[in-house]
């Protein structure tokens, strides 16, 4: 251990960040953060969602500019005006959100912006050959002429990684790269990272998985609530201590104690197969007064099954029963009439009307109830105002201006607006799909309490989450999905990190 430490310290400093601050409207995402990266090391950034990891790597990759602070690359102070200028000096990033163009082929994406030309025309032949070479070298079995949109998420992830490796590298940024890879593909990626290390490439690596940290990293920097906590050598700290560093004092308070009181079955799904086969033959049951967790990797079917129950995903086969009755017509409108409410994971894409006022957003799904409408046509605008004002106060919206555009609120407050929507109707089953993505710790705690209150009031709750601690601390029953199938159903004390993670992957690999 001592030996390894000496080695890394001798290595040259590649990148140094000093006192980086980043202010977003309403949120200070990074508060005076220091970070450094040496040649040939893997440096893990560790922290909760919203701790500022993504903001930090976005600054290094040139897609965000710091509000203040210094960025020193190889002993020279630098400013990246764009991703392109960061790329030019060899900084490549693989983000969780892909930067691929779905309509183009693998080759075209790999060479996007750095196309090879011959006498002013595109040199398709050379590019195809080189693409094949790159993919072979990486050991990814992909066809260079395949269109991105025809690939699975894991395959797209591979293209994204190949893109990063295809240019001359000095710093490689990987943001949860293994999230949708299989065991074998992950192994291959680790080999590649080791190769890159030996060539002197510095790797910034974001992951939530303890196993990965211990396997491939040299140092760990912990961030919490946008602030720098500490930097440690891997192996000098236990997993438990590391998690405590990450969550800090908040750990005791963030997850509330919940009194579950499972009652009669509200929702029963039998042998469900979705149109796109993202869910295959899954059966679940949700009772009143309990919180059921849906765990698994992105695309494992954990979200899709609930979306199918709400009429968003097409259903090929299978039955859905609500309150004992078989439901034939499954559309969002009809499910809401039955008393089901689905809160989508992405505010921007499916959740909110960003350019409309908070008032219109909160009341939108309840305009058909008699409290807000006269007949089926006219609105009671005064009643609407009163109701929304009341909910905004209850949710502690800040600032409490309900006529302001939703897009002008901070992420946490936008999330509150989404949650306020569920209180406008009489609802028996709440489905929360990743309810705390991109919100700060304070709002997270508020959201958990919100969910607890609903549960203790007797509602049935389904919590779809990629955030393991949420599943561990909030649910009394959990289904773990793998590739569209239910791999395990865990109950009470059996819901442990080990049990859940074990089922994230193929059974034979585990």
């Amino acid at each position, binding site marked *: 251990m001592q030996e390894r430490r000496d080695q890394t310290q001798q290595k040259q400093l590649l990148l140094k960040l000093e006192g980086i601050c980043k202010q977003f*409207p309403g949120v200070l995402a990074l508060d005076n953060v220091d970070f450094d990266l040496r040649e040939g090391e893997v440096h893990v950034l560790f922290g909760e969602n919203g701790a500022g990891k993504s903001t930090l790597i976005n600054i290094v990759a040139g897609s965000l500019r710091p509000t203040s602070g210094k960025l020193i690359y190889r002993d020279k102070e630098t400013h990246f005006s764009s991703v392109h200028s960061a790329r030019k000096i060899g900084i490549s990033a693989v983000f969780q959100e892909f930067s691929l163009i779905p309509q183009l082929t693998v080759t075209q994406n790999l060479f996007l912006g750095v196309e090879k030309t011959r006498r002013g025309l595109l040199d398709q032949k050379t590019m195809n050959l080189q693409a094949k070479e790159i993919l072979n070298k990486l050991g990814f079995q992909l066809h260079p002429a395949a269109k991105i949109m025809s690939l699975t998420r894991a395959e797209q992830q591979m293209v994204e990684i190949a893109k990063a490796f295809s240019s001359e590298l000095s710093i490689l940024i990987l943001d949860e790269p293994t999230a949708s890879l299989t065991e074998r593909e992950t192994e291959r990626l680790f080999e590649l990272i080791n190769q890159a290390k030996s060539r002197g490439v510095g790797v910034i690596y974001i992951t939530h998985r303890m196993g990965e940290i211990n396997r491939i990293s040299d140092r760990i920097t912990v961030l919490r609530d946008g602030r720098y906590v500490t930097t440690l050598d891997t192996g000098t700290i236990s997993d438990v201590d590391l998690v405590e560093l990450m969550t800090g004092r908040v750990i005791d308070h963030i997850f509330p104690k919940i009194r579950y009181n499972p009652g009669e079955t509200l929702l029963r799904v039998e042998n469900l197969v979705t149109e796109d086969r993202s869910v295959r033959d899954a059966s679940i049951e949700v009772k009143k007064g309990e919180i059921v967790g849906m765990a698994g990797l992105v695309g494992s079917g954990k979200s899709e099954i609930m979306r199918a129950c*709400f009429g*968003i995903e097409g259903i090929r086969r299978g039955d859905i029963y609500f309150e004992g009755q078989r439901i034939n017509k499954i559309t*969002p*409108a009809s499910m*809401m*009439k039955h008393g089901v409410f*689905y809160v*989508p994971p992405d505010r921007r*894409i*499916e*959740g*909110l*009307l*960003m*350019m*409309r006022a908070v008032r*219109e957003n909160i009341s*939108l*799904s309840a*305009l*058909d109830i008699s409290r807000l*409408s006269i007949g*089926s*046509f*006219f*609105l009671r*605008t005064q009643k609407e105002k009163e109701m929304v004002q009341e909910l905004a106060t209850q949710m502690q919206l800040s600032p409490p201006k309900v006529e302001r*555009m939703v897009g*002008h609120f901070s992420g946490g407050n936008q999330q509150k607006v989404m949650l306020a*929507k569920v209180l406008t109707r009489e609802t028996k089953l709440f489905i929360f799909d990743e309810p705390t993505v991109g919100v700060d710790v304070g709002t997270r705690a508020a959201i958990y309490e919100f969910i607890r209150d609903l549960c203790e009031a007797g509602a049935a709750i389904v919590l779809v989450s990629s955030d393991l601690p949420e599943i561990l601390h909030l649910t009394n029953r959990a289904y773990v999905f793998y590739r569209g199938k239910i791999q395990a159903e865990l109950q009470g004390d059996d819901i442990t990190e080990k049990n859940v993670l074990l089922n994230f992957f193929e059974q034979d690999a585990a």
Partner: protein
Amino acid sequence: MSETIVPKINKFIMTLLRRSFIRMGVLPFLIILAAIIFTSLSSNFLSVRNILNVTRQSTYLIIVSMGQMLALLTGGFDLSVGTIIAVSSVVGAMAMAAASSMFPGAVVLAIVIGLLAGLLAGLTIGAINGIGVSVFNVNPFMMTLGMASVGFGIALYLTGGIPVYGMPEQFSNIFGFGMFLGVPTPVCITALLAVIMFILLNRTRIGRYFYAIGGNIKASSLSGINTRWNLFLAYLFCSGLATISGLLLTARLETGEANIGASMPLESIAACVIGGVSLRGGVGRIDNVILGAFFIGLLQNGMNLAKIESYLQTVVIGLLLIFAVITDQLRQYLIAKSQD
């Protein structure tokens, strides 16, 4: 002393201008600017008679723009409004002429038959647009462009390109040149439609859903809104308003013509955009749209009085549209900045 006051006043005026620009957009400034320029060019411009005249002339565009606004609010647009005007004019006039020759005494009956026939023809085009956009997910651009060609072809085929005569005189006397309580009938009808539209957009579920669908169609669908039905309604209502405009124009011209309305798609979209309707959907106010359409009427009238050639006038309208879009971008930028 005065040296320190002047910059202060300047600064005050600048902030005031900036604030009002952010609040109301570029339109009030344009109207004031146009009024100043045209008044200096022609003494007739600001006379009561001329302003009344502009108002009456603008009504046709105002009605169409209100319809266009619905399509824009849902995130689409309707390029077939001109064709709808032409088809309703031709079909309405032919039906009215046929009915009045069949029942020479029954003038009211003939007018009603003509109006209903025109309305039916116009709404049919709107319904087809609506079905194409909402059920078959055809891009509104292609759908309405296609229907514009179909409708125009039908209107020409029916008439052979010749104006349709033979409508009862009373039709034009009432709906074209008539007065109601001292106000021209078209203006009265436009005012009534404006009130209905205001209520529809601000006090009914349908209106709210139009904004919601344009704001975020996925979120609307997840909120339990029947997005298909409401999209269909938007195009249907749009065609209804265009049809009314077409029938009123027919009364004014005293003939049914296939060539009227050709400039309506551009002008109605321009009126909406100048009035602050977002091309991405979800944002826009009916009062500003009416003002935008009125402004275009004012501009055309002013240019006529200033003896600017009509070919050049279309150049001005086109440039104005682009200018409005650019200033709107600036406004969005300022809004975002002032909210930090």
